[in-house]
């Protein structure tokens, strides 16, 4: 394990906390030609320049895994104090908020002021919200800098984030408006799965890494 040719390239780390579809994200980054590492070792976290926090599963389970791996403190240091960019995907974005009501009440990482709540769609709309839906971009840079118009993305979730309006980078309409993307300084998150959203998803990854100065 560990990064090869350590001093030449900027490094992308996919945080492996035993929940999530690392394979799909790895496929997308491979296709775009980025070098990356999937790891949860502290020394790798310290060396990385940008992070991807994946996640498919339950909130409580995710926080339990992160706690067990003892990587919360080091991530907090790198992201909050050393301002390294991070992109949370689906559950990865949700755990960056303060807390969630999924199967009880769980404390999150608290990097973004906000909460995770169960969706309450109008009649006829089933839970979970699964499928392709078009989002409304509010903050174009950097995530949607390469995307034109209100692009379609693949969603798959039953809970969603409510947070301060100034941190919302995109919304999706499913009976009512839900947060689809968040941005706060170097912290980004998307509720949909860009690795499963074809060209517009790949464009989002490229927009994020361009922002990180990784080419």
């Amino acid at each position, binding site marked *: 394990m560990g990064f090869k040719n350590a001093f030449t390239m900027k490094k992308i780390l996919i945080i492996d906390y035993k929940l999530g579809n690392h394979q799909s994200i790895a496929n*997308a980054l491979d296709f775009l030609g980025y070098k990356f590492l999937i790891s949860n070792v502290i020394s790798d976290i310290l060396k990385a320049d940008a992070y991807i926090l994946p996640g498919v599963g339950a909130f409580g389970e995710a926080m339990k895994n992160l706690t067990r791996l003892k990587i919360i403190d080091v991530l907090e240091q790198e992201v909050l104090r050393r301002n390294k960019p991070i992109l949370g995907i689906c559950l990865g974005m949700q755990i960056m908020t303060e807390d969630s009501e999924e199967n009880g009440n769980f404390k999150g990482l608290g990097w973004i002021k906000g909460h995770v709540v169960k969706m309450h769609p109008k009649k006829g709309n089933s839970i979970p919200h699964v499928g392709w839906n078009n989002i409304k971009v509010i903050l174009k840079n950097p995530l949607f800098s390469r995307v034109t118009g209100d692009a379609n993305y693949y969603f798959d979730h039953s809970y969603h984030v409510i947070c301060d309006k100034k941190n919302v980078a995109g919304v999706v*309409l499913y009976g009512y408006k839900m947060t689809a993307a968040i941005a706060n300084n170097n912290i980004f998150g998307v509720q949909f799965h860009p690795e499963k959203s074809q060209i517009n998803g790949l464009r989002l990854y490229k927009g994020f890494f361009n922002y990180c100065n990784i080419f």
Partner: protein
Amino acid sequence: MLKQRLGGVVVVKDNLCVQSIGFHKYLPIGKPEIAVEFLNKWGIDEIIYLDISATKKGLKPDFETIKYISRKCFVPLTVGGGINSVSDMQKLVRFGADKVAINSAVLKSPELVNKAAAVLGNQCIVVSIDIKLVKGKYHVISYLGLQIVEKDPVKWAQILAKLGAGEILLNSIDRDGSAKGFDLDLVHKITNCVNIPVVACGGAGNPDDFSKAFTIGKANCAAAANFFHFTEHSVITTKAYLKKKGIDLRIDTQADYQSFEFDDTGSIAKMSDSYLAEQRFKYCPPETI
């Protein structure tokens, strides 16, 4: 708004993508990974990869192949064939599948749906039902021996939905490979009785069949195998036709066929000679990500 979906089915028998006719005749098409790559490029909304020989031979899913094909697939990937435990499903998800399709394992022990949904979430579990019309009545069929299972399709679908299935993949054996259109009566029967998404499959022969599956059958996703494999840009032209018919779909491909005319069945109408002559020297910029 949530979009309607087109699904591309890749039927795999002995590691080869095949055209299936009535669940008993098979014609070779080619390598599965090429089929997946093309469907992905043509803007399909999801890919359903079914290995029909695994369970028959008592084999596990081919995990390495799934890992390999998932590299070409940037849309949701449903994998079926050879799955008979929750650990198989977890391993498939780890190897790049987004959903798993189960069929004979559920006919044997329906509670598997419940167990799997608790671990992987409902959205991950697709239950496939094969149906045949015998003496004017629909019957659930076990595809292994093409035997009738004593289950009423409507009741069976309702049981599956209650157990926690996230989606139902509805196959009509009579229409499989026939290109006669979806069995709309059957599709409507099932979509009417459950409120989880239903993927209609079997019989698509022209773009208008998909339109009927959405409007008359009320399917959430219309899927086809043979129809998509044999024509260049089949998915994009189908989507362009459906869009003209007022069906809300995702069109993200660079070529979108929006300016084309279609005939009644959804085939592209012939363009004027002057238009075609003009096209010969037209520059198409490459797509940038």
